[in-house]
């Protein structure tokens, strides 16, 4: 598991989006969205910013470095 936790699943579900829909919006496959939510993949900065802007939350609230 990666040391970067995220709130992608919570923010996505709060907006009623499926993994496929979120993937289509930010340019990722459903499998990659699932991997991000399971902390098995860390997205690029560009994708992270796209998600943060989409959800309307600061980047450091969406992705957090865990010591």
């Amino acid at each position, binding site marked *: 598991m990666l040391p970067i936790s995220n709130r992608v699943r919570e923010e996505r579900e709060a907006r009623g989006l499926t993994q496929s829909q979120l993937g289509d919006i930010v340019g990722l*496959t459903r499998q990659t969205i699932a991997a991000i939510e399971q902390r098995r993949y860390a997205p690029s900065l560009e994708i992270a910013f796209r998600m943060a802007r989409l959800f309307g939350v600061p980047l450091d609230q969406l992705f957090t470095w865990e010591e």
Partner: protein
Amino acid sequence: MLEIFNIGSVPMSPRYKSALLSLASLAIGYGWYFASLFADYRAGVHGHQAVHLRVTILAIALVQILGRVVIAGTSSDRYGPMDEREIVFDWRATTIGYYLLLAGSLAAMATLHAGAQAADMANAALLAIIVAECARQGVFLMLHHRAG
């Protein structure tokens, strides 16, 4: 849906299934070809190689075309362009495949110095290509499981 197509609860992408199909068809198809080639060599029989190779190429092409049609028709995900994660997987897999191909090509050329005929060197080169491609697809699949 077969469980082998799933990692956790997430069905695998059409690209993953295509890579699995390529790996399986290449391994089985060319495995049969090289096994029959080896058997012919041991028996001292020559002349079947060209026919076996044509059959192998046609069978693999048929399986891959039909398999991709089935994958495209049955997958819940569309066959879109690679995303950033798949591009990284593909890049890593291609790098490994490239170095294997390089080593295999040199080994195939070296067979000439061991007294092999041109047809033997061609088969060695073909083996290098197939091994490299199988490694490329295999690494691509493995990376999906490691960072799936």
